[in-house]
Every structure is written in structure tokens, then in C-alpha cells.
């Protein structure tokens, strides 16, 4: 079984309990027959970065010069990683590459990761890629956090799983690392990769307060850090949280690929199972109990000298401790101070400063012994100074060989961790030495201090420890205490616990008894642990080995395939050994006399690919150096130019200052101009608005002008039309006037005449009517006379009765145009039947009367006709002149009354018999051409009467040209 054991480091560089345990386990595995190849990082002077060197150790861990060739060996391969190199993804990647080369070279069958600090999850991938089964052991919180101690830079522990708190810590660390000046000096030199925390006393009050505020107060705007600052801080925090989350995810994925995961305490196993999401099993680490217990415990006397006791056996009953206890109950021993030891790495999270604070002033009651060292030189120096000042005994670094002796000189071991400590090796070493402990009360440590009593079911068979029934002081519940628990970081409580332990002899004795009777995982030896691991390896390797040999090849190739697989499983050095042995045999087989060394010498001289590649590398390096030199020269030149530029810049800066001053002045001017511009702008806006308005107005007026122009044009056209019309009308009017004159001459005069005639006629008519009345009355008288005559003469009665006594004719008013009526006497022809009977008597009267009637009817007809003509003339005149000529004539024409009876028949030809000759008072001159001639005469000069135009006055001005004469 060949195992690669990945550790964090080994002595002398690293002497932490974890590192000691890794080496101890390697040794134990080697004793168990396992080929162990330890891989660890270390600073190797004089070697290239990531160079690897392998050292063989015997199973006692001695270096090659001292190793006993009879003992089985294990080897440690160191990869050169300077202490000062900060961890980064790039450094992890390179380290993982180196680890891959190690795996290729050593060909382990299983990889046991005691830790992955510095490697990162990539190391697991390297192993998996090669088909190697893997196991991982968690000793701290690395699986869940990059800050594996789960403390903030101010040594405040945060709850595992709280990525935000961790992110704050990471940001704070960067900030601290970036401090300069006096603050930086206070932190001390050589921080390197060990820099994970500070003591607040190392910082100034302001810096410390700022650190505390950042670590424990959410980012909100404060004085001096506005909203923007708070947001920037929050953004940086978010980014850091995301980065940590990504890291955690990568770890989770890698650990998910590990075949078996373990943790060194039940608490850690439980928590990591939850945080990582993968099952972790508890496996207690072992310790070299036998070596520790074998150390002789010096007997203390009142005088303070030490005497060797009898030889120690492993049997508890004859243990030197028991003998000392039985003989030590003297007042002298009761008066000696309690020897309390602090052992292991002197790092801040292990809380030595808390212990020192607790022990300050306890001289005489507590004697503090400090064993250990670390790479945190500033802290070590600070603690040493403080320790020596207060009278503590500073022993410094120790080897594992020296440990038993140092433990034997103590009464108790103190572990004042300020981080959530897990399963410190020193705890088990103290128990192995029979010493009670005073430790910080963390959940993991509690399970190593409060253990179940034998027979109790509490804790079960996997409980960290148990004490035989009846032994030990009662602890919490059914647990037995192997020591005292104090709150982490509480120097006061620690002080009280130490005082109690120093003063209470009974307590001390019971704790010691409980420790000495401890059984179970807390007492596990390294050999036992190695056995457990061997079983785990065997289980994992068996399945993998079967997969190594290809099974999908023809049977006749299987043998070759197995041979190849077997050779590929060998470490390179072993393979090389096989080859060199084979070459020796070959030389012998072919009968060569030259020895292998001679052949090797010749081989080296012949040249090789490695030498060729080195030559090529050397040329490349030389080229690079040359390039670097050239770059250096170029840089020198650039620096010279830069200095010149700086001078130029200084000059330019002066000019710039002057320009800036001018610029400032120009700015003022500019501001003034801008103000003016703004004003102008306002005015401009107003003007533009006005312009716009004016433009609109202009446009509107132009439109209006256009429209008016059109209207004017139309009016002009209309005017022209009107003018033309006027001219035409004037012509027409002239013609009309002519006609009118003619009419006047003929019609008007006739009309006047007619009117005169009318009046005369009316007078005549009236006169005729009177005459008729008179005549009628005379007729009546006559008829009476006649009657009387007849009566006198003896005439028939009928003839006398038939004589009208009343006029037969009634004056009727004939309707005229316009409805007016005028008295128009209408003499109906007398229908006198007797007219024919006695025509002789009345015939001359009737004849006269008839003639009078007929003549009157003719006059009336003539009058009606004249009236009609007058109406027509009036109408024509009205139509002609009403609109245009207006004037008196039109007025007159309009006023002409339609008095004549239009129903009266109009003679076709006006030829009124006797009308021109008879003087009845009415002279009715005959019109020239007769009535029709009158009509024609009127009509000839007159336009055709039209029906009233339905259009408006304006349109009436426009006449179709064809209507014009």
C-alpha cells in the first residue's frame, strides 16, 4: 500500500499540533507497513519556485543522515513555497500543478489529504483525474471557509457558515495590509501569509475603531462616508461575498469527489456535514501516548529541586505520577504554585495574550510556562516580552522528542483559544501526560473535556472519551470533566479558573484522576489511528485497482496490459531502479565488460534530450535576460525621458496654473456671456415667438391678401362685369329711356291722357252715373208720366208694370289687378221682354240708353285695356328701372295703380268707335299701331320681361351675354 499524505508542513518549519500529528501519522503508517509519501510545502533556500525535493525519513522520523536503514522509511517531498508568498488562486494553481507532478512521480494508490490549505480544491481534482481514491480530514473550518479559524482580523470568532462576516474580515485584512506609515509600523514586519489577524492594541485608537466599525457595523452613511461611500463599501462586500461563495462552491464540489471525509471532532463533523453538504465522519486523531507517558515526572520539593523518581512503568498503579501523588501531600507541595503550560504554535488565535492577561499578578499562585514558537514573529516577540515582564517562563520552541519531558514538568495545560478550536493535539498530549486542562469553552473542545462516564449511554461508543465509573469530578449532566472550561477571550474568567485550580486541591486531584482513567478516542494512539486508516485505504484501493487493468482488450493482450499497469503503478524512482537493474542484466546478457557506471559516464557524455532541452531553455532564458536587459535599458531611457517629462510637466504645470488663472477669468467672462446669452436667448425666444407670430400674421394676411386679392379680382371682374353690365344697362337704360320717352310720349302721355281720360272718364262716369241716375229717375218719372199718361190714355197695365222703376244696372266694381276694385258700372244688357213689345215708345230712349251703355262699355273696356297697358308698362318699367335707374320714373311707375279691370276684354285691335271722336269728356286717343302696336312698341324697346330672378342681387348683375341686346 502506497499512500500520499498531503500535510501542511513539517518540522522544523512547522511545529503546530496539526503538523506534528501529520508527521506522527506518517511514521505510524510506515511502521504499519505502508509506503508513505508525505507532500508538504516549505521554503527551500536556493531553489527555484515550486522545486521539489524528497527526503527519506526512518519510521522514527529521523533525517536521512541518521536514519536506521533497518527501519521502514517514509519520505517527505517538499515543494518550495516561500513563506512570504501570499495565497492566491494563481499560487494555488501552481502548487496544484506541482502536486500533480508529485502524484505522477510517486504513483500512490490513495491520497490522504490531511489538509488542503494552500492547494485549494484543485488538488483533489488532480488526484481524481489520475483515478486515485482520496480521503480528506478536516481539522478546522477550511472546508467551509477560507478563514479556517473562523475568526475576524480582530480575533472575534464568527459563526461558521457566515460568509458575510468572513467577507468583512477579508476586506478588513486587505485594508490593514494596505496601511502605511506609522500604522503599518505598529503591525510589525514580515506579515506574509501568516497575517490573518491583529491585536487591537497594535492599532491606533482611530484605526482600531474604524476596524471595529467595519467588522461589526453594517455599511450605512456616516459622517465622512456618505451614501456613495456606503454604497461602494456595500458593493465591495457583495463582491467579496460572491467570491467566497464561489470558493465555497468549488470546495464543495471538490470535497464531493473525495471518497471518504472525516473530521477530528464530532462537532466539526456535524457542522461540516451541514455546511458543505457532504457527510463527514468523526475520526479522532491519535497521539504518541506511550512516549509521552514514559517521560519521568520530576518530583517537586519545597526547595524547588527536582529528584528523579523510580523508573516509570506504563502501569497506572506504579506510575511515577501516582507515586508522586501519594507522597506529595505535603505542605511544601501544597505551597508551590500551579505550573500551567501553554504549548504549541504561538499564534494569535490560540490566545496566549489572553492567558498572559489572566496570569498577570498571579505570581506565586500560578507559574506559567510557555513552550512553542511560530512564524508570526511580531506576535511572538510581543508575547515574549510581556511574558518575561510578568515573570512567566519562556521556553521557546521544542521538538517532539522534548515534548514528554516538558509535559512532565507541568501540572496543567491551558489552551485559551479565541477561535472555535476543534481537536488540538496538545489536548490529547496533555491527557497522555495525565494533566488536566483549562480550555476555551467551544463546542468541539467541550466534547473533549466533558466526557461520558463509563456505563452511561450518553455519547455512545463513538463518544470522544469516557471515564471509568467513580472516577473524576462531576461535570455537566452525566459528563465528567477532564478540565475546566472558560469563555473564549475572557481573561477574567480564565484567571478565576486558574486560581480555582491552584487553590482547590481536591478539584485538581479529581481532574487528574479522571484524565488518568480516560478511555476511548481521546486516548487513541497513533498506531491505532494508522490501523484505522489502513483499513480505509484498503477498502478504497481495492475497487480502484481492479479498474486499472484494461479489461476490454483481447485475451492475448491481457498479459501485456497487466505488465504495463503494474509498471505504471510504480513510483518513478522505483521504475528507474527496475530499469537500471535491467540494464545491468542486459549488459551481462550481451557479454559486455563495461560496468554500469562506465556506461553511464559514457551516456552522460553522449548528450541527451534533457541536456538539449536545457540548452534550449538556457538559450531561451538568455534571450529573456537579454530582453530584460534591453527592457531595463529602455526603462532607463524612459525614466530619463520621464524625468525630462517631469520637468516639462512642472513647466507645463506652471503654465497650466497661469492658464487656469486665465481660464478662471475667462470663466467669469464666459459666465457673463452666458448670462447675456441666456438673456439674449430669452429675448431671442421672445423675438422668435414674435417672429413666428408675425410670420403667422403675415401668412394670414398674405392669405387674406390673397383672398382679398381674389375678392378684389372677383370684384374687379364683377366690377368689370358690373361695368359692362352697367354700360349695357346704361345702353339698355338709354334705350329704355328712349323707349320710356317714347312710352311717355305714347304711353305716359297716353297714360296721363289715360289718367286724365280716366279722371275724365271717371268724372264722366260719375256724371253719367248721375245722369243715369237722373235719367233713371227721369225714366221713372217718365215711366210714371207715361203710366199716368197711359192711364190717362187708357194703356195696358202690363206694359206699364214692366217699366223698371229702378235702374237695371248696378254699378259693380270690377276687380282689377291687385284686387282693388273700382266702381265700374256694369250695365247689363237690359233683358226686357217688353222691349220688343213696345219698342216704339221706349225705343228711342232705350236705343239711346243702349247706345249709351255700349259706348260706356267701350269706354270701360278701353279703360281696362289702358289700365292693363299701364300695368304692363308699369311692370316693364318696374322691371327695367327699379333696380338700376330708380328714380322718380320708377317710383312713379311703381305707383301706378292697377285700377283697370283686367278682366275686361281687350279688343284685339284697339279701335274704339267713336273713341277718338266722341267727346264724352274722355278723350282716348288711339295709340299708334293700336294696342298691339303699343305693346309692340313698348316690347320692342324693352327686354323681355323675365320672371323675377331667384338669385340675389349680385348675381342678377351678371347676365348671360345672350340675353343682352
Amino acid at each position, binding site marked *: 500500500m502506497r499512500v500520499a499524505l498531503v500535510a501542511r508542513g513539517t518540522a522544523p518549519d512547522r511545529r503546530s499540533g496539526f503538523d506534528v500529528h501529520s508527521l506522527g501519522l506518517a511514521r505510524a503508517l510506515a511502521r504499519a507497513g505502508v509506503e508513505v509519501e508525505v507532500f508538504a510545502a516549505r521554503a527551500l533556500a536556493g531553489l527555484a519556485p515550486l522545486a521539489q525535493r524528497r527526503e527519506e525519513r526512518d519510521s522514527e522520523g529521523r533525517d536521512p543522515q541518521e536514519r536506521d536503514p533497518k527501519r521502514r522509511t517514509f519520505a517527505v517531498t517538499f515543494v518550495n513555497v516561500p513563506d512570504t508568498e501570499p495565497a492566491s488562486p494563481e499560487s494555488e494553481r501552481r502548487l496544484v500543478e506541482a502536486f500533480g*507532478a508529485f502524484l505522477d512521480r510517486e504513483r500512490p494508490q490513495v491520497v490522504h489529504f490531511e489538509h488542503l490549505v494552500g492547494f485549494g480544491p484543485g488538488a483533489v481534482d488532480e488526484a481524481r483525474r489520475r483515478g486515485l481514491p482520496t480521503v480528506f480530514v478536516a481539522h478546522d473550518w477550511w472546508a467551509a471557509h477560507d478563514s479556517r479559524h473562523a475568526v475576524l482580523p480582530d480575533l472575534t470568532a464568527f459563526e461558521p457558515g457566515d460568509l458575510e462576516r468572513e467577507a468583512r474580515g477579508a476586506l478588513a485584512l486587505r485594508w490593514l495590509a494596505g496601511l502605511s506609515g506609522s500604522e503599518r509600523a505598529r503591525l510589525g514586519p514580515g506579515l506574509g501569509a501568516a497575517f490573518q489577524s491583529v491585536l487591537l492594541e497594535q492599532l491606533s485608537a482611530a484605526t482600531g475603531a474604524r476596524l471595529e466599525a467595519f467588522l461589526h457595523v453594517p455599511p450605512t452613511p456616516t459622517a465622512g462616508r456618505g451614501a456613495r461611500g456606503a454604497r461602494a463599501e456595500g458593493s465591495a462586500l457583495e463582491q467579496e461575498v460572491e467570491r467566497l461563495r464561489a470558493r465555497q462552491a468549488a470546495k464543495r464540489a471538490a470535497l464531493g469527489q473525495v471518497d471518504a471525509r472525516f473530521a477530528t471532532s464530532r462537532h466539526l463533523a456535524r457542522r461540516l456535514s451541514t455546511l458543505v453538504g457532504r457527510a463527514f465522519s468523526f475520526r479522532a486523531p491519535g497521539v504518541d501516548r506511550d512516549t509521552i507517558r514514559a517521560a519521568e515526572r520530576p518530583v517537586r520539593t519545597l526547595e524547588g529541586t527536582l529528584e528523579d523518581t523510580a523508573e516509570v512503568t506504563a502501569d497506572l498503579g506504579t506510575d511515577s505520577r501516582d507515586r508522586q501523588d501519594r507522597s506529595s501531600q505535603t505542605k511544601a507541595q501544597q505551597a508551590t504554585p500551579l505550573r500551567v503550560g501553554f504549548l504549541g504554535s504561538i499564534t494569535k488565535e490560540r490566545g496566549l495574550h489572553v492567558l498572559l492577561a489572566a496570569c498577570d499578578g498571579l505570581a506565586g499562585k500560578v507559574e506559567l510556562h510557555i513552550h512553542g514558537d511560530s512564524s508570526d514573529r511580531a506576535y511572538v516577540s510581543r508575547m515574549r516580552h510581556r511574558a518575561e515582564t510578568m515573570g512567566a517562563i519562556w521556553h521557546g520552541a521544542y521538538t517532539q522528542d522534548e515534548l514528554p519531558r516538558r509535559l512532565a514538568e507541568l501540572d496543567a495545560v491551558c489552551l485559551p483559544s479565541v477561535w472555535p478550536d476543534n481537536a488540538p493535539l496538545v489536548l490529547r498530549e496533555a491527557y497522555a501526560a495525565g494533566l488536566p486542562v483549562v480550555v476555551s469553552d467551544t463546542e468541539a473542545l467541550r466534547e473533549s473535556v466533558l466526557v461520558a462516564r463509563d456505563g452511561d449511554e450518553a455519547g455512545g461508543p463513538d463518544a470522544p472519551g469516557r471515564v471509568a465509573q467513580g472516577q473524576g469530578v462531576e461535570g455537566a449532566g452525566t459528563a465528567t470533566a477532564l478540565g475546566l472550561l472558560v469563555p473564549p477571550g475572557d481573561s477574567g474568567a480564565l484567571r478565576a479558573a486558574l486560581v480555582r485550580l491552584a487553590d482547590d486541591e481536591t478539584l485538581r486531584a479529581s481532574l487528574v484522576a479522571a484524565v488518568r482513567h480516560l478511555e476511548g478516542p481521546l486516548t487513541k494512539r497513533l498506531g491505532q489511528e494508522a490501523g484505522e486508516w489502513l483499513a480505509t485505504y484498503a477498502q478504497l484501493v481495492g475497487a480502484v485497482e481492479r479498474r486499472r487493468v484494461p479489461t476490454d482488450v483481447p485475451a*492475448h*493482450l491481457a498479459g501485456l*496490459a497487466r505488465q*504495463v499497469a503494474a509498471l505504471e503503478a510504480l513510483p*518513478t524512482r522505483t521504475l528507474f531502479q527496475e530499469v537500471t537493474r535491467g540494464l545491468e542484466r542486459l*549488459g551481462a546478457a550481451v557479454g559486455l565488460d563495461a560496468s554500469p557506471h562506465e556506461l553511464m559516464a*559514457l551516456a552522460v557524455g553522449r548528450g541527451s*534530450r534533457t541536456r538539449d532541452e536545457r540548452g534550449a531553455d538556457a538559450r531561451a532564458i538568455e534571450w529573456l535576460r537579454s530582453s530584460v536587459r534591453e527592457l531595463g535599458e529602455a526603462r532607463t531611457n524612459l525614466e530619463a525621458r520621464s524625468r525630462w517629462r517631469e520637468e516639462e510637466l512642472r513647466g507645463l504645470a506652471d503654465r497650466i496654473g497661469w492658464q487656469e488663472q486665465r481660464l478662471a477669468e475667462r470663466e467669469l467672462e464666459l459666465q457673463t456671456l452666458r448670462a447675456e446669452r441666456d438673456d439674449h436667448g430669452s429675448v431671442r425666444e421672445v423675438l422668435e415667438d414674435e417672429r413666428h407670430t408675425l410670420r403667422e400674421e403675415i401668412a394670414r394676411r398674405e392669405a387674406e391678401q390673397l383672398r382679398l386679392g381674389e375678392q378684389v379680382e372677383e370684384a374687379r371682374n364683377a366690377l368689370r362685369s358690373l361695368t359692362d353690365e352697367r354700360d349695357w344697362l346704361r345702353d339698355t337704360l338709354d334705350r329704355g329711356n328712349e323707349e320710356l320717352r317714347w312710352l311717355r310720349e305714347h304711353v305716359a302721355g297716353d297714360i296721363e291722357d289715360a289718367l286724365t281720360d280716366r279722371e275724365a272718364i271717371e268724372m264722366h262716369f260719375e256724371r253719367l252715373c248721375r245722369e243715369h241716375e237722373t235719367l233713371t229717375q227721369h225714366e221713372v218719372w217718365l215711366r210714371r208720366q207715361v203710366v199716368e199718361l197711359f192711364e190717362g190714355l187708357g194703356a195696358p197695365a202690363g206694359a206699364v208694370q214692366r217699366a223698371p222703376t229702378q235702374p237695371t244696372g248696378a254699378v259693380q266694381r270690377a276687380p282689377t289687378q291687385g284686387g282693388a276694385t273700382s266702381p265700374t258700372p256694369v250695365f247689363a244688357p237690359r233683358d226686357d221682354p217688353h222691349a220688343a213689345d213696345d219698342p216704339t215708345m221706349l225705343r228711342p230712349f232705350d236705343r239711346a240708353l243702349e247706345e249709351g251703355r255700349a259706348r260706356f262699355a267701350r269706354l270701360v273696356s278701353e279703360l281696362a285695356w289702358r289700365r292693363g297697358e299701364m300695368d304692363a308698362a308699369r311692370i316693364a318699367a318696374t322691371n327695367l328701372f327699379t333696380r338700376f335707374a330708380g328714380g322718380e320714373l320708377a317710383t312713379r311707375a311703381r305707383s301706378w295703380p292697377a285700377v283697370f279691370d283686367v278682366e275686361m276684354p281687350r279688343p284685339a285691335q284697339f279701335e274704339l268707335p267713336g273713341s277718338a271722336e266722341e267727346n264724352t269728356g274722355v278723350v282716348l286717343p288711339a295709340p299708334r299701331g293700336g294696342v298691339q302696336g303699343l305693346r309692340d312698341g313698348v316690347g320692342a324697346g324693352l327686354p323681355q320681361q323675365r320672371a323675377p330672378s331667384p338669385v340675389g342681387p349680385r348675381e342678377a348683375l351678371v347676365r348671360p351675354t345672350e340675353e343682352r341686346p
Partner: protein
Amino acid sequence: MTRPVSIVIPSLGDLHQLERALTALRAEVQARGVEDQLLVVDDTGTDVLRSALDVPWPEVRVHARKENGGFAAAAFDGAQAADYRLMLLLQPDVVVRPGAITALVEALVDGSVFAAAPRILEHGDEDRPVSRRVLAIEDGRLGVHDTRGPMPADEGQTVPIAFAPSCALLVRREEFLAAGGFDELFAPLYFEDVDFGLTAWRRGRRIVEVPAAVVEHHAGGTVSTHVPDALARAAYERNRLLVQWKHLGSKREAHDHLVSLWRDALDAGLAGRRDELVHLALALGELDGVDAARASLVDARINLGTALARARG
């Protein structure tokens, strides 16, 4: 007048490949008209070919091995099962062109010729004659080098070559059997034909190529199908060393060779080139076999260097 030939074809069961070869062979056999024997050696160990070839290839006789034994074992079994005095050993990824067998048979009329190889064209490429690979020792290491480019036109009926590639070679069956077939030292594959040829040359016989007998070798049909690359590479490098160790003649040759081996071993060890160390270790693990193989050459008349020189003509 030609003579009948037993055509022995070891097969790992790739039927498509086999039928392609058999198609060409059937035509050639029919053309020759002398009832050549077609004998397929089923090296699958499961006798799968018999039923597959029975109906479509009634003229093919199948000899099934009880277990998979590799090319050399299958060839030996086929030689034992063959009927005729002349045996044409063919791998199933070879396709004969018309007239190839007759030309080969003519070459073996010369009793000094131990084996005759046709002009083997890689994938039918005239510029890649596999049969003209050259053996040379450079920097103390034996190597096989391809010959590229068109062959000269006036090469004659036969051309001496260092070895007849095992993918296609004509040999007298009794001589083949008497020699024990291919040396088992080189099982499972590679360089058994090189050793076969060098052994013949060192025993005073000749290996020739017959340019008029042309076949096509469609490589990749056997090894790449059944053998992982890394394993094939390991077998090749191992056997390249074994063949040289078997035939190391003079002390000077041995000295030069050992010096180069030590250098390569040191180089590989320092540089971490594990593959080279594995190959060396594989070969060195067969030293017992090398001893036995060297002992079998007690009747060799010339050493390796002379053999190579003669093979170059």
C-alpha cells in the same frame, strides 16, 4: 505456370474487413484457376466466423482457435492447417490486386528467397510502400523508417528488403513451421516480421519485395480497433528493443546500444518521462526470453549489421 497457394488469414472477427479482403481474393483465385486455398483462422476464441462465412463464402475454410492467441499463434495454427506448400499469410486489412499472388509465387522459385512480400501500398497510395520500410541503427537504437515517394521504374522483378511485413508475405509452409513461425518473444504484436526477416538474412537467406505483386494495406483495421493506443505503443517500443537485443551481434554494437539505453534511461528518469521508463522496463522484463531467442540463433551466419547491409542491397 503458377502453383496453388494456401492463403491464411488470421482474423479477430471483423467481418466487414474480412469480406472486403475475401472479395478481392475470390476474384484473384478465380482468375488464377489453380484452386488456391482460402483459410481463415478465427482467433476470437468464440468460433464466430464459421457461421458468418459459411453461406456467402463456401470456398473459405474456417479454422477456429479455442482461445484468442494473437497474430503469431493464429498464423502458426493456420500454417499447420494449410494444405499447400506455399503459404500466403495475409492480414484481413489487406486487399490484393489482380496478379499479385501469381507474381509472388514466381519470386519464390528462387530457393534463396525465404519469403516474398508484395508491393504493399498503404491505403493504396503509390507513394507509401509499406513493404519498402528500412531498418537502420541510429544512435545505437534500431529503428524502422518509412520510404516515401514513387519507386524507381526499373527495379527488376524482385527487390531485397530487410523484412517482409507480416500483413502480406508468401513463404514456404514447411520452412515457416520449421522456424517455429514468428518468435513468441514478440507476442502479442509488432516486430515479429522484422525478426523473421532478420533471422532469415542472418541465416543466409533473402527477403524480397515483388513490385509486380501489388496489394493495399488499409491500416487501422486491426490494431487500432482492438488495442488501446498506449498499450500498442508500449508493445511497439518493447519489441523494438527486444528485436535489437535478440540480434545484437558484435560487442561494439552492444556497447553502443547499452550506452544509448543508459542515456535514455537517465534522461527519462530525470525528465520524468515515465512512458520511456515503462517501455524499457517492459523490455528488460523479457531478458530471459531474449536469452533464449539469442540462443536460437547459434546458426546465424552473419551479424545484424551485415544483414542490414545486405538487405539494403
